[in-house]
């Protein structure tokens, strides 16, 4: 979230799209409803299915799964055509006035530089022009035909009401209703926010769904303000934290880039990822990248990491350039027999992974599997799953009993970036220990073997700093969290030129802000964005429970710690005009008073940008200092474009000759079957959760109260389709895709209504993804037996939200 949960109350218009907040984030929904109570906010729900969220909204607009970009592209068109954008903001705070390079173009669904064989773009032409001094050229009148604004306008002029209506199945009246309601927030004193969840990420165009909305929010001046932003209602308790610490192939903690083969020295690596800006008004905060990265290496290897050995850079693994190693790639390689061992920690991939049938077959090829969890699940017991003969499975399986959350101390980060401390209430039962302790002990045992026997490339294992236990030899969360924050490794004098002060820190003190990190090895920080979660003297800010709310906006600056540096709304300098006066004086998030910012922790101390000498642009993490309407960072193009899902009802994309996202990776294994626009699988299908279960249900299915409320798998099927198929409410049905099938109960409902798409009637159905064969015994199996192995082109988030099925009476 750019903002946070309590901040939603400050909104005037809330677009819920890609989320069923009322059922999946009930307490978040409380803040949505509070915005209505306090401000008379309008609440709009755009979703294929009518849910409890729809029931509490001002209106519900159903759209066909997988057509969000078309819907939002139409909104961009509407905003520009009807002059609804916030001109002052767009001109000053976005790259709208920048000039696009002469060789960039877009034709029939493809941007310049496409290589159909590799399914990848060469982005050399996706550039913005610079003047002789190396500063981006601008046309502040926004009239140059090659300026970003005009290019954006031209791109989305194709998203007419007729076109969008025909693709999405949304009536033109409904489109106009949402467009006009939402774009009314493009004025200084109104805030609009967007709440999404997996309904946006689970698509082959997931990242671009979100980026399309980011463009809208920039056009309307809704980024960086109270009650605005783009807000992911994320699904897992610590998914913000686990992402921040990057248990992900492509990043190191703090979103640092994973090392790749072509960058064989630390110098080359740092050079590549340290952006340069010639514009004196751009803070270009990532110019500090080497400080964050070297401090991370120091946190791993401590005094073993020296300038001479490149701080251990050569010890760490390197990815092949341009190759992905995501969950889907892992199971693909495992299915080929190339992966021998797997750690499966507090998850259930045999239920939660796409094309679960392939995943379960892949698990059979493992030599060993280590599971760590508080309950058993379908992954750990794959060797006696449906149709599996244990006597033929060679895998050695370990299932390690874990402490539950209230049986251990540590911190957890919510979606609003609040890092909250949890305390240990009781001992875990039996031999259960925290996952952190298992991690320490397993690695201790591995270290011991390497110390005794030697082995291949032992340096990173032997040199790893690994002393995170207390005096009794148990996992010490506080020690780890201090290591994450970071230390001064020698006496250091920090000079603040702006304030004219110097501060001396002693070796062993904690680093109070990432602004103090160094690239010479004199500081450590396990994750730079968490630097400042402690004070230099060791006060743990994550434990704070102060309820003061000086702005009245619900920032709660003394409750827990929010990264970065306790900033509650990121990009907050954009809430003020170029002189530092709040655009909306009624919701004053920040204000430049005299020679300082007052309010939330500002995005950097510099004066507002009207001060040509010392002032900085507001988007300090962007190299150019402004929000990107033109976003060349995305793999499938700088402007989002509508493509059909990998599996959909159409044979032709109404927007272009490119049916599917040209940049997605196509998996070609024997079990990776696809049936687009097939008569055998005529219905669009989507998947979702319910209030009582959580994700794969691996925790909640074992709980009697929750299971009783939601006991088994069902399919929601519209009454018209049910009638057509002769299916009655409560009957058992078989749902199949080309990859697999599940049996479940039919829930005949008015919540799904058919769509008119390109002149034909398209039915959509949906199933929850919370069930698995192990428990309860008659609860039905995983919905992911149906879903395809394919992911978003940027992130490899699987396409769980749009694929094709058939439904028959069982």
């Amino acid at each position, binding site marked *: 979230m750019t903002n946070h949960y309590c901040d939603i109350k400050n909104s005037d218009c809330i677009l819920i799209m890609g989320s069923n907040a009322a059922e999946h984030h009930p307490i978040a929904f409380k803040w949505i409803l509070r915005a209505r109570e306090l401000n008379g906010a309008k609440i709009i729900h755009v979703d294929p299915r009518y849910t409890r969220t729809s029931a509490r909204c001002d209106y519900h607009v159903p759209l066909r799964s997988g057509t969000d970009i078309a819907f939002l592209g139409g909104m961009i068109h509407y905003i520009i055509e009807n002059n609804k954008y916030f001109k002052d903001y767009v001109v000053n705070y976005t790259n709208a006035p920048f000039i696009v390079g002469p060789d960039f173009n877009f034709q029939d669904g493809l941007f310049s530089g496409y290589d159909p064989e590799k399914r990848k773009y060469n982005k050399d032409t996706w550039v913005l022009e610079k003047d002789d001094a190396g500063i981006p050229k601008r046309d502040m009148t926004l009239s140059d035909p090659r300026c970003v604004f005009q290019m954006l306008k031209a791109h989305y002029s194709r998203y007419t009401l007729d076109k969008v209506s025909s693709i999405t199945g949304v009536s033109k009246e409904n489109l106009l209703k949402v467009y006009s309601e939402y774009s009314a927030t493009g004025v200084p004193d109104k805030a609009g926010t967007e709440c999404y969840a997996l309904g946006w990420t689970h698509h082959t165009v997931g990242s671009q769904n979100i980026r399309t909305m980011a463009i809208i929010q920039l056009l309307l001046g809704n980024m960086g303000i109270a009650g605005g932003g783009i807000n992911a209602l994320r699904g897992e308790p*610590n998914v913000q934290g686990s992402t921040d610490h990057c248990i992900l192939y492509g990043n190191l903690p703090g979103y640092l880039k994973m090392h790749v083969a072509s960058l064989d020295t630390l110098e080359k690596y740092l050079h590549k990822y340290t952006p340069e800006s010639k514009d004196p008004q751009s803070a270009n905060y990532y110019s500090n990248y080497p400080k964050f990265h070297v401090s991370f290496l120091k946190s791993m290897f401590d005094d073993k990491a020296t300038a001479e050995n490149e701080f251990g850079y050569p010890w760490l693994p390197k990815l092949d350039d341009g190759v992905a*190693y995501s969950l889907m790639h*892992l199971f693909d390689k495992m299915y080929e027999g190339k992966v021998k061992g797997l750690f499966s920690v507090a998850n259930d991939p045999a239920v939660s992974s796409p094309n679960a049938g392939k995943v379960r077959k892949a698990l059979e090829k493992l030599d060993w599997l280590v599971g760590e969890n508080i309950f058993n699940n379908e992954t750990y017991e794959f060797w006696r799953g449906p149709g599996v003969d244990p006597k033929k499975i060679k895998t050695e399986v370990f299932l390690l009993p874990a402490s539950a959350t209230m049986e251990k101390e540590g911190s957890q980060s919510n979606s609003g970036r609040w890092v909250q401390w949890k305390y240990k209430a009781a001992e875990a039962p*039996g031999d259960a220990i925290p996952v952190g302790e298992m991690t320490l002990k*397993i690695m201790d045992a591995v270290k011991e073997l390497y110390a005794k026997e030697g082995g291949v490339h032992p340096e990173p294992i032997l040199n790893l700093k690994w002393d995170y236990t207390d005096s009794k030899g148990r996992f010490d969360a506080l020690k780890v969290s201090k290591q994450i924050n970071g230390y001064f490794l020698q006496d250091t004098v920090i000079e603040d030129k702006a304030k004219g002060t110097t501060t001396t820190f002693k070796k062993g003190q904690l680093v109070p802000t990432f602004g103090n990190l160094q690239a010479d090895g004199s500081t450590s920080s396990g994750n730079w964005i968490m630097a400042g979660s402690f004070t230099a003297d060791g006060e743990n800010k994550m434990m704070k429970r102060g309820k003061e709310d000086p702005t009245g906006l619900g920032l709660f600056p003394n409750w827990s710690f929010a990264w970065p540096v306790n900033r509650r709304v990121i990009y907050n300098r954009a809430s003020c005009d170029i002189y530092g006066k709040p655009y909306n004086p009624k919701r004053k998030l920040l204000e430049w008073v005299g020679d300082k910012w007052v309010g939330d922790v500002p995005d950097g101390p510099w004066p507002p940008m009207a001060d040509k000498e010392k002032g900085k642009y507001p988007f300090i993490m962007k190299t150019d200092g402004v929000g990107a309407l033109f976003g060349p960072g995305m793999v499938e193009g700088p402007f989002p474009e509508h493509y059909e899902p990998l599996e959909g009802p159409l044979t032709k994309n109404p927007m272009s000759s490119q049916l599917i996202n040209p940049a997605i990776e196509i998996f070609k294994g024997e079990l990776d079957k696809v049936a687009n626009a097939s008569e055998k699988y005529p219905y669009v299908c989507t998947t979702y959760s319910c209030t009582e279960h959580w994700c794969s249900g691996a925790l909640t299915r074992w709980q009697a109260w929750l299971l009783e409320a939601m006991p088994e798998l069902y399919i929601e099927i519209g009454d018209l389709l049910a009638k057509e198929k002769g299916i009655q409410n409560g009957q058992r049905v078989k749902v199949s895709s080309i990859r697999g099938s599940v049996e479940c109960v039919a829930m005949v409902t008015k919540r799904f209504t058919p769509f008119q798409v390109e002149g034909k009637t398209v039915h959509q159905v949906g199933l929850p993804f919370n069930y698995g064969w192990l428990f309860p015994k008659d609860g039905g199996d995983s919905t992911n037996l149906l879903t395809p192995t394919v992911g978003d082109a940027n992130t490899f988030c699987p396409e769980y939200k749009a694929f094709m099925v058939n439904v028959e009476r069982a």
Partner: protein
Amino acid sequence: MDITRRGFLHLSGAVGSGIALSTLGINLKPTRAYADELNKMNRVKAAKQVTTICCYCSVGCGLVCSVDKMTGKIFNIEGDADHPINEGSLCAKGAGFFDLTEANKHRLTKVLYRAPMSDKWEEKDWDWTLKRIARLVKDTRDAGFVKTNAKGEVVNRCETIGHLGSSNVDNEECWLMSVKCRALGLVYIDHQARV
């Protein structure tokens, strides 16, 4: 001084009776009825109150665990009324939090081991288990380690071990796993953030 429900529980637990509260200069009228009610709740009153955060969705609702001081066991978990996000309320999952404690008989309490070709679990101790896992990790890593890629570039990685999870554990645990994977040279590293 505001007395929230939780604050009140703290105070009354600490001083033992409502009488002592008046010495703090607090107007007890509005809370007296409540205190009478509390007299029936001796267990709660005497309990240690420990705060935690919900382990399901990312809203981060606060909860309070009541722990019996004699047995050290949790006997009640409810919403934290002082928490600025949930203000005491919880959804069905958070409200059912107690069923995650050891009171739930499905909880795993022993290391379970399934030998190759076996059709059942057997219980093991930690010592044997850690040694066996370390052995498998080392042998698999040493046998499959890739020093250079097809282009001849140095890559120093282990492609034969994967690591999945987790966004359902604490930050400190996440960081340790992230670092452990890198030290071992793993590249197939992923978790629920993607799925």
